[in-house]
Each structure stands twice: as structure tokens, then as C-alpha cells.
């Protein structure tokens, strides 16, 4: 699967089809209306979370503000533990993805050897057969390995990422061969060449891939839901789902506060590093 086209240089010449005057106004109004529609769920969650629960469905400009919903949500479920689990999970996955991906991409990008194309095709198969489709068999594997209800069990199906390998291979292929040769003439071993030449030059790709991987696994839900069943291993998404399922009888204001809390780290990071996020997702092409 090909990566998305790279962003080109911004146009400086005037575009004859750029809207002007009335049509620009109309277009701006349309775009802004759609934007309001798009942030409405988030805006509503903020409204409900910072007001007492009697204002959840009543919108009055001067309704009293409160942080009570956040403290109630925090006290009602072990969110501190869930945060830690998610943090460990995301770090664990990314660390392994980077190491395994770098090694495999280096082999595929620069060496010609027996079975390379077959290996590449076998790796790319994961782009289509995503781990989500294989929940039944992967659960059996985890049972056999005795790993059910552990953080490594959530991580293992994802630590070899075809997408990461593909992305790094494409980047490594753009490294000039002369740099590689020069380092070898200096007496560097293949692993030294990788660490001193390829990895530093692929920095933007690592950052892009890192951001995409972190946001994907922070938000991942179905597999963690299946493979975990205790507070000790449950990530935030699963914790939030258990906390907010209707039979718990928690009111909406508290659920909205919990929802915002679990999304907050990513959301804040996104608001601060907006450009990097958008560019990373562009560069990375697919999750």
C-alpha cells in the first residue's frame, strides 16, 4: 500500500479559482457551520462536565461552574491505575515497534538476499489482516502462553507493525548509498551504520510514526476489552467503558467528566502540537 502523497510547497501565485467576495463569505460560513457541528460533541461534554448535573440538559449562560464532576469521577473508579496501565502499554508497544521495525526495515531497504521479497509480502499481509480480525485465535494463543489479563498480552499482537516497517523501509531507501558506503569504509559494522547513519536521518519518520502509534494505542478498545478483566491490567478506554455503562447508574455530568479526563492527555498534546500532529498523520498515511 502506498503512503499518501507528501505535502507540496504552499502556492504563492494567486489561484484564479480561489473564492472572492460573496462566494468567499458563503464558503467561510459553510465551513464554520460544519466546524461547529464537528466540535459540538466535545463542546457539549465540556459544558456538562463543568456544570452541576441539573444543567446537563439546560443551557443557561450563567449556570454555576464546578469541578465536582471531575473529583467524583476520579473517586468513583481507579482512574489513576488505568492511566498508569495505558501509559505503560503505550510505551511498551512503541518501544518494541521501533526496535523491531528498524531492524526489519533496514534488512528490507538495503540488502539483497534470498527470500527478501517473500518476507516483505508476508509482512505487508498485516496491513489487510489487522489484529482486530483475529481476536478469537489470538485469545487462544494468549491462554496457552498464560498471559490473559496482563499488559504484555494487550501489546503483543501489535509490536510487529507492518505499517511501521513499511514506513521506515521507504525512509531508509531515500538515504544516499554513498553515506552507507563511506561509513563502511571507515570500518563501521552493519549495526553501527544503522545507528549512526540511518536512524538519525529518519528522525521525522520516527516522530510521525510515534505520534500515530501513541494515539492509536491510547484509543484502542476491542482487544484490551477482551483480554483484560482486572483493574491491574485494564487500560483507560476499557476502564471508562465499565465506569460509564448504563447499569452503573452514574449521571451524565460525571460520565462527561470521565470522558474528558481520559481523552485529555492526547487532546492537550494535540492542541499544543497541532501542526506536528496533522503533518505526522499525513506523513504516516495510514494508522
Amino acid at each position, binding site marked *: *500500500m502506498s503512503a*499518501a*502523497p*507528501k*505535502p*507540496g*510547497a504552499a502556492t504563492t*501565485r494567486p*489561484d*484564479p*479559482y480561489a473564492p472572492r467576495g460573496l462566494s*468567499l463569505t458563503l*464558503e*467561510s460560513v459553510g*465551513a*464554520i457551520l460544519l*466546524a461547529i457541528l464537528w*466540535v459540538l460533541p*466535545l463542546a*457539549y*461534554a465540556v459544558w456538562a462536565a463543568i456544570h452541576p448535573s441539573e444543567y446537563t*440538559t439546560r443551557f443557561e449562560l450563567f449556570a454555576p461552574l464546578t469541578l465536582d464532576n471531575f473529583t467524583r469521577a476520579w473517586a468513583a473508579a481507579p482512574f489513576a491505575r488505568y492511566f498508569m496501565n495505558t501509559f505503560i502499554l503505550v510505551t511498551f508497544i512503541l518501544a518494541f515497534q521501533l*526496535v*523491531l521495525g528498524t*531492524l*526489519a526495515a533496514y*534488512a528490507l531497504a538495503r540488502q539483497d*538476499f534470498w*527470500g527478501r521479497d517473500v*518476507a516483505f509480502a508476508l*509482512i505487508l*499481509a*498485516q496491513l489487510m489482516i*489487522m489484529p482486530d*480480525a*483475529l481476536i*478469537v*485465535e*489470538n485469545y*487462544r*494463543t494468549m491462554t496457552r502462553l498464560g498471559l490473559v489479563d496482563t499488559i504484555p498480552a494487550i501489546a503483543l499482537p501489535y509490536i*510487529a507493525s*507492518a505499517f511501521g*516497517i513499511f514506513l521506515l523501509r521507504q525512509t531508509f531507501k531515500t538515504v544516499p548509498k554513498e553515506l552507507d558506503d563511506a561509513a563502511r569504509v571507515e570500518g563501521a559494522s552493519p549495526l553501527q551504520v544503522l545507528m549512526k547513519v540511518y536512524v538519525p536521518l529518519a528522525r521525522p519518520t520516527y516522530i510521525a510514526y510515534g505520534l500515530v502509534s501513541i494515539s492509536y494505542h491510547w484509543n484502542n*478498545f476491542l482487544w484490551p*476489552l477482551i483480554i483484560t478483566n482486572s483493574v491491574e491490567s485494564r487500560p483507560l*478506554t476499557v476502564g*471508562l*467503558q465499565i465506569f*460509564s455503562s448504563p447499569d452503573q447508574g452514574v449521571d451524565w455530568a460525571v*460520565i*462527561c467528566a470521565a*470522558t474528558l479526563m481520559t*481523552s485529555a492527555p*492526547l487532546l492537550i498534546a494535540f492542541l499544543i502540537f*497541532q501542526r506536528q500532529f496533522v503533518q505526522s*498523520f*499525513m506523513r504516516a*498515511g*495510514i494508522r
Partner: protein
Amino acid sequence: MTAYQRATVHGWLLLLPAMSCLALFTHWPAVASIIDSFYSTPRPRRPSRFIGLDNYEAMIADPIFWRALVNNFWFAVGTIPLSIGLAILMAIWVNDRIKGQSLVRMAYFTPTILPMIAVANIWLFFFTPQYGLIEQVVQLFGGNATNWLGSGDTALFAVIVVAVWKEAGFFMIFYLAALQGISPSLGEAAAIEGASRWYYFRRVLFPLLMPTTLFVLINAMINAFRMVDHIVVMTKGGPDNATILLLYYIYQVGFSFWDTAYAATLTCVLLALLAIIAFVQYGWLERRIHYR
């Protein structure tokens, strides 16, 4: 040892960690699903045994399976064109120098980084009968009360709305990147020829965006079979299986009914569908798309 042999040893040593993980958690489970689909589910007193095509026969006779397949079809038909169309519109708007451009772009992109499970909670409240936000707006205009998620006629539609909302902004950035890469001289030439803006979009921009559309289309198709997080929160496949999707049904059969052999059989159908998507992508669409 020749240089080629040495490269082979090196290459496979470098590939070994990644390949063994892929073999264990992607290749083997895919093969095991096929094998298990020919066996019965092991029960405490009855070990698993070979039963040939019985699971497949049961599947063909299973109305819920067909329901899941048909729902998944409509889910794909509902989400894919709508989210791609909106993504193109968003990208063109954000690419023009409209007012508040960067805030608008941020608004469109925000759903992408929010957990589906969290936003599904908020949407669940939007769709709540009587005092949910949508009902309040409907009542304001004197419309009839609708139980959006509780009625079989509207539940799938509600689930599609959430999926489109989540995806469109993500697809937008690929179109944005593509639009920025299109040479401005094309627009200048078209303007000299007196082409209208719509004509320029239809005959110049849209064809040039085709590689992006193919890429987004494949992603959207895979997503149509992968997105079930919001089903878990909003409907649990109900009411009366009105929103059951294939992957959700696999989850239900595998982990609520613990019928692993039947779940493996359903997995084989999902794998076959994904393989068809891959085949369509590489074998057919790639040849028909106009590349720059």
C-alpha cells in the same frame, strides 16, 4: 560463504524478531481460523472433533450472520461515500483562504484523535430519547419524538452518523496534502480557457485526486469492517440485531457465547472479505487510476 549467503543470514537475522511476532500473531491465527472452522468447539466433556463443513452449513442457516453481513454492507455504503465526499469538501474549504482557516481545520481533525469509546458515550447522550440533545432540537421544531438508538429503523443510521463524524476529518488531511501538491499552473490554464469552478473541479482536480481517493477508499473499506467500538457502547448490536456488524458478531459469538469454532468460521468470512478488498485494490483499481 559467498557475500550473497552472508547477506541472507544477516537479512534474516534482522527480520527474525519482527517475523516471529507476525508469524505468531498474524499468520498463524489466520491459518488456525481456517483449521478451527472445520472442527467443533471444545466443551468440558466433549473434546473438539473434525466435523467437516458443519460450521459453514450452520452459518448459512444462521439468520443473524446474514443480518450482520447485510448491516455491514449498508454500514459501508452509508459511511464510505459520505465520509469521502465530506473529506473532499473539507479539504477544499480549508485549502482556500477562508476566515478562521486553522481553527476550522483543527475542528475537523479533532475527532480523529479522540477515543471512539469516549465520543460514543457523548453521542449516546445526543441520541437519548426525550431529553437527549437531538430530541430537544427536534421538539423545538415540533417534530415527532424518535428513539434513535432504540428503533430498528434508525439505529443503524445513528451508528453511521457517528462513524462519518469520526472518519471524515482524518481523510481530509490526505486530500489537503494532495491539493497542496497540485501545480497552480493547471488552474491558471483552465481559467484562461474560461472553465467554471465546478468544471475545473470535475475535469481537473477530481481526476488528479484519484490516487488519494483510492488510498482513502481502501482505508475506508477496511474501517467499515473494523469499527465496532461505538457499537459496544451505543447499541450492543441491538435493537433486535439492527446494528450488528460482522466483527461485533464475531466478538459476541467468541466471547459471550464462547462458541470458538463458530467464531473462527465467521473470522474466515471476514478474512475472505479483506482478501477481496486487497485483490480489488492491487489487481483492478490500481490499473484504472490515472497517476500523475
